[in-house]
């Protein structure tokens, strides 16, 4: 990985495209001022984006490392910085630094496995990168199954790509669900944790879950009832971050810093740490 001279001094990025995914999520395409991909990363890693004078925030890199031209971030509007980001127009510069974190073990533990991705809402952001990485290196992985749910039809992030590229693909199964019935929706209705129980999943899968804490909690419970073990399930943690490199002391869970030892953890690893998240 390329070494930067000083991790906390950001590089510049240019937003070249802003796409509205849902009422409160937009996806931003970012390149370097030279028009290239701003930095190299692995799936599940994050970067710090900022607008000077507004603030800096950690965001999952939602595009796959195999995307050579640019980098994408799906960002939910929920506060000061994210509201400003949502106002951005193409051509605007931002600052960017990273990549941070461990990422998913796509080249080790996940290799050769049947993969089950479970995402809720904006939780698709980190998984999106892994899914496209695994699609690109298809021969390295077994079956791929994706369960993705949101509050409503309009809250499904990346729905166009899911329907046009993922669903038709062989060896890849997609299950979509929304919380409540809605006009124009013929798919499944119900919460993700319940849907997981209805799907007759085989137990030989390695599971990657991302989403709101409450969804993760109940989904994990239900997976365990089905017979999955905690060693089979990975997730990403989200804690307040500032430095991104294990120095500012902000993001620890027990003796681990989420920004450098995480954000990806296996549930049996989390079991050994204080449940302070």
């Amino acid at each position: 990985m390329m070494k930067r001279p000083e991790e906390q001094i950001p590089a510049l990025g240019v937003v070249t495209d802003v796409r509205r995914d849902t009422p409160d999520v937009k996806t931003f395409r970012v390149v370097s001022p030279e028009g290239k991909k701003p930095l190299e990363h692995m799936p599940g890693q994050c970067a710090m984006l900022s607008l000077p004078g507004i603030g800096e925030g950690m965001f999952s890199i939602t595009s796959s490392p195999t995307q050579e031209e640019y980098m994408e971030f799906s960002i939910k509007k929920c506060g000061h910085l994210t509201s400003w980001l949502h106002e951005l127009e193409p051509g605007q510069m931002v600052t960017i630094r990273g990549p941070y974190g461990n990422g998913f073990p796509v080249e080790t533990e996940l290799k050769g496995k049947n993969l089950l991705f479970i995402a809720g809402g904006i939780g698709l952001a980190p998984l999106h990168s892994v899914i496209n990485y695994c699609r690109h290196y298809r021969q390295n992985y077994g079956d791929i199954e994706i369960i993705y749910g949101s509050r409503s039809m309009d809250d499904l992030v990346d729905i166009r790509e899911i329907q046009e590229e993922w669903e038709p693909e062989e060896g890849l199964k997609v299950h979509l669900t929304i919380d409540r019935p809605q006009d124009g929706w013929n798919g499944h209705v119900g919460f993700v944790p319940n849907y997981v129980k209805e799907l007759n999943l085989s137990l030989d899968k390695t599971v990657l879950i991302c989403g709101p804490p409450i969804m993760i909690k109940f989904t994990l419970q239900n997976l365990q009832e089905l017979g999955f073990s905690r060693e089979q399930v990975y997730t990403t943690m989200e804690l307040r971050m500032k430095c991104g490199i294990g120095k500012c002391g902000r993001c620890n869970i027990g003796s681990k810093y989420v920004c450098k030892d995480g954000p990806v953890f296996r549930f049996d690893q989390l079991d050994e740490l204080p449940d302070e998240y």
Partner: protein
Amino acid sequence: MLKIALAGIDRLFAAIAASKKLYLPIENAGEVEFSEYSEGAKVRLDALQTVKSAKDAFFPFTENMMQFHTDGKNISVEAAKRVDEDFVVFGVRACDARSFSILDKVFLADPPDSFYAARRAHGIIVGLACHRPEETCFCTNFGIDPTKPETDVTAWIEDGVLYWEAQTEKGKALTEEISAFLEASDEKAVEEQRERTKKILERLPLANLDLSYFKTHPELEIFKRPEWKELSSHCLGCGTCTFVCPTCQCYDIRDYNTGHGIVRYRCWDSCMYSDFTLMAAVNSRKSQVERFRQRFMHKLVYNPINHEGEFGCVGCGRCLRKCPISMNIVKVAKTLGGEQA
């Protein structure tokens, strides 16, 4: 060993300050803090400890990291200049000296923090041996020898004379520069002082803390001890303990509009504050119990796990003296470690 009469020490300070910034314990408005030397400053080498620790010299209370200029949709970033000139920190006690090696393991770990690294590379530390430790001192529990600080130069004050011994290449270079002020000396007075001090150290009330519990039990078990609730019940969350502590490392990063551009700076922060971990929907440490526990778990448990058994405390005793409710790391360690508090 070299020496200089204390009566003429101002000339030595002036000579050092002529070519380098010199920081030493200076009394200002009744409080002694490490501050920059200027002629006529009230230097207090006799003060056992400054209110805040010497970490300010390497990890300042606030520090500009970069400046931004914006022009329409364009942004430019200008990193702040790193320290590039040697400076001297004079009169650092053994506990504070050890704290630098604890901070090094955080700030110099890959990827290194270049602001801190530059200060460490250019800082020359003159340590000052203790000969009148206080009842709140417990540095010897961490293998620290207060009669001989681990610094570039070690100094002792005895009977109106300052004894001087270079310990490192940096220390030797500094000694060379000011050799005109120093004369040769035997080590007798220093040896005698060290012997005397060691006897006092053995008798200090906190000389023999048993901290083995924290290294022999799993973090989760210690984390779950019910005593945390009672221990933290009076904590005000004022953060004093973190600000005076030489090993506390937490910082915030913020932007400030100067009117001529935007400065991004960092400043000390405290895990004792309620907004430290606040996020959109949740706060991972909801009440003061969790915040209090974090500070002491970090020092007594997480630091040893991450840094080869080294505690994140040097026994300086500052938090014992400054906490408004008289809570401190010794009480925590004794309560959880099984000793009578």
